């Protein structure tokens, strides 16, 4: 299959390329960018006039819900959602049922994902068996099976002795540990601690739940030299601690979810369970600091934190509702929204969902490390073609994900995916009316 993408605006944040041109693809690889010689005979030509040709998006946090939560999402539906959102690679946390703590489970997931031939799936292995925080998993075996790092997902690790040893062990072999900084004792509320939670009578997660966890992690990183990726910051104080840790040269990276980048606690309105997300939505000043942190690179990547939730689990009182929102199909538009509102611009916005997350993944991507998240000759042909002017309204019923809950329901978005190419093949194409 030879593909020719003609007359697009090619934007590749990794190389700084931003020009009109063509992209030629053969045998799953990009063979020419910019000018394509006349002797390239494509079996299919895509007219990208008016579209931006960008690297496929890389989402560092997307739950596919398999195995164990198939009533909330299946690989078929969630991978279809991914490519509809321009996402060509995604990292999924290990909090499935059973948890991803054995190589066989990881191999099965990778196999199922590969057979669908949609996005590339990079699982995180459980850091401890059953995420119970006691016994380390077989990290080398899990890495061989395809894990790109190790995580406790949403299950806090209370025991700092185990965390210390996990970081020592992981760093022995150069594995990255992915941790959401949240003190297990203080971090149990359902909203962000503050005037709004107090007024609404919701239990609050204080900012110190994040900063205490960060301080602990940084001390252990100093001691062990382990590489840690911090998942989904939520507070201004947290962003500042990460900024200082990076200035100090600690081997840490971090991400933020689209929810904490765009929303604040006031958006909870009248107990809207769609706003029940983890970490909880904080105050205006926290959101401002997160936006600034993403702009100055303190925060490396933007993630969808895609978590399909069954309808029954959301039509409950706020505190009883299951946290999470569908997000894969909104990631691009929400990155662009931030780019436009913050003045960071389109290439910088794209970087937060392409080259930057690839840099976080680093060598764990294996053979794809050199070319994922960028548009280079000889590189893997994972591309996202989108119309940067297209306006659309988020309608849950129109989403491909099995999860229909999103805080952004009814929002006007700008920027819509028209075509997604994974490994040189068209994995998604919008219908004319979409």
């Amino acid at each position, binding site marked *: 299959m030879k593909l020719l993408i003609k007359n697009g605006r090619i934007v590749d944040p990794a190389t700084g390329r931003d020009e009109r041109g063509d992209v030629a693809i053969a045998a799953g690889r990009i063979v020419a960018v910019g000018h394509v010689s006349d002797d390239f005979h494509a079996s299919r030509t895509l007219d990208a006039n008016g579209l931006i040709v960008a690297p496929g998006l890389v989402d560092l946090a997307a739950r596919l819900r398999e195995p164990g939560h198939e009533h909330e999402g299946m690989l078929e539906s969630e991978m279809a959602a991914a490519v509809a959102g321009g996402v060509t690679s995604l990292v999924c946390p290990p909090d499935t049922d059973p948890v991803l703590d054995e190589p066989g489970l990881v191999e099965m997931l990778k196999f199922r994902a590969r057979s669908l031939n949609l996005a590339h799936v990079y699982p995180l292995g459980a850091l401890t068996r059953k995420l119970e925080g006691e016994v380390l998993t077989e990290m080398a075996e899990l890495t061989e099976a395809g894990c790109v790092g190790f995580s406790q997902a949403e299950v806090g690790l209370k025991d700092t002795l185990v965390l210390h040893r996990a970081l020592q062990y992981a760093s022995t072999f150069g594995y990255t540990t992915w941790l959401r900084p949240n003190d297990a004792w203080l971090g149990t509320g359902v909203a962000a*601690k*503050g*005037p709004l939670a*107090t*007024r*609404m*009578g*919701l239990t609050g997660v204080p900012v110190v739940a994040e900063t205490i966890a960060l301080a602990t992690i940084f001390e252990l990183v100093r001691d062990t030299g382990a590489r840690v990726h911090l998942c989904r910051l939520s507070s201004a104080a947290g962003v500042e601690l990460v900024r200082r840790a990076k200035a100090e040269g600690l081997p840490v990276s971090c991400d933020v979810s689209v929810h904490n980048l765009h929303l604040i606690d006031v958006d909870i*309105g*009248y*107990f*809207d*369970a*769609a706003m029940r997300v983890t970490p909880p939505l904080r105050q205006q000043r926290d959101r401002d600091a997160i936006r600034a942190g993403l702009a100055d690179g303190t925060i490396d990547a933007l993630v969808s934190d895609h978590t399909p939730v069954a309808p*029954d689990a959301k*039509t*409950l*009182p*706020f*505190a*009883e509702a299951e946290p999470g929102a569908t997000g894969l199909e909104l990631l691009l538009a929400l990155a662009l929204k931030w780019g436009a509102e913050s003045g960071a611009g389109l290439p910088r916005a794209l970087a937060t969902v392409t080259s930057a997350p690839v840099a976080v993944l680093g060598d764990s991507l294996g053979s794809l490390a050199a070319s994922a998240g960028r548009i280079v000759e000889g590189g893997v042909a994972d591309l996202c073609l989108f119309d940067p002017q297209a306006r659309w309204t988020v309608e849950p019923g129109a989403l491909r994900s099995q999860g229909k809950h999103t805080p952004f*329901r*009814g*929002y006007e978005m700008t920027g819509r995916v028209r075509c997604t190419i994974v490994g040189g093949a068209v994995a998604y194409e919008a219908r004319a009316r979409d």
Partner: protein
Amino acid sequence: MLSRRNPQLNSHGELIHLLSIEGLPQAVVTQILDTAGSFLSVNDRDVKKVPLLRGKSVFNLFFENSTRTRTTFEIAAKRLSADVINLDIARSSAAKGESLLDTIANLSAMHADMFVVRHSESGAPYLIAQHCAPHVRVVNAGDGRHQHPTQGLLDMYTIRHYKRDFRNLTVAIVGDIVHSRVARSDIHALTTLGVPEIRAVGPKTLVPGDIREMGVRVCHDMAEGIRGADVIIMLRLQNERMSGAMLPSAGEFFKNYGLTPDKLALAKPDAIVMHPGPINRGVEIDSAVADGRASVILPQVTFGIAVRMAVMSIIAGNNA
């Protein structure tokens, strides 16, 4: 995005559900208090009934046990001539795993006209109001730590009865503010009615600093908190909070924040003492105060029936 319009008001700003005191216009609060005043005399008559809710079915849905509040709602509904059905959900459907909205759907199919809801989770009555048929009315009888609006309103009725004017009062609310839906309803009601000084009194574990943003002054010292007060509202300290990480013991709490005759002497000579009940004698309030001249705890209960009659008759009379 759900509708941002306050779900308890119709497009004319009239009350169709009572979910929270927050966001209620002063005129609506005053209307409820005035209407309650007219119902007080009904309670003194030989035939204690008016026909305003005749033919209507009021379902008391108590997902959390409360004999007292349920009883006062039942009396209020019966005095309005409604048919009253009491459902102790805590021991029935919910225990069998039926979801909240399934329960509501089933009861709606029995042609309920009004749900009086108590639930342990903040916001549960909002969920019900957003999912029931347009003609059905919802009254929040206490949701989690969020609101207990009829208690707030009966407290306002009581204060107005004894003090007449809200605009020069100092009101102290003492005790477990953080867990108290009564405190939140009282604070919204007092600010709506123009009370210039509202104090929240208690230790830092029970009085969160950000309650200031609701328009109250935080006092961690009891003497400072009640000095010169016209109204003292004592809150019930739940048994499970009496010893643990919130408080070391009930005894130490009483020593610091219990209302004794000595401490009451710091308030204005004509100060009134209120309590939403049930009271813990010797924990938050000394018997000498609870039974003393300043106590209006029992009149609160009487007024509570008239206030609940007012709320139910008003919301039943407004169209969604």
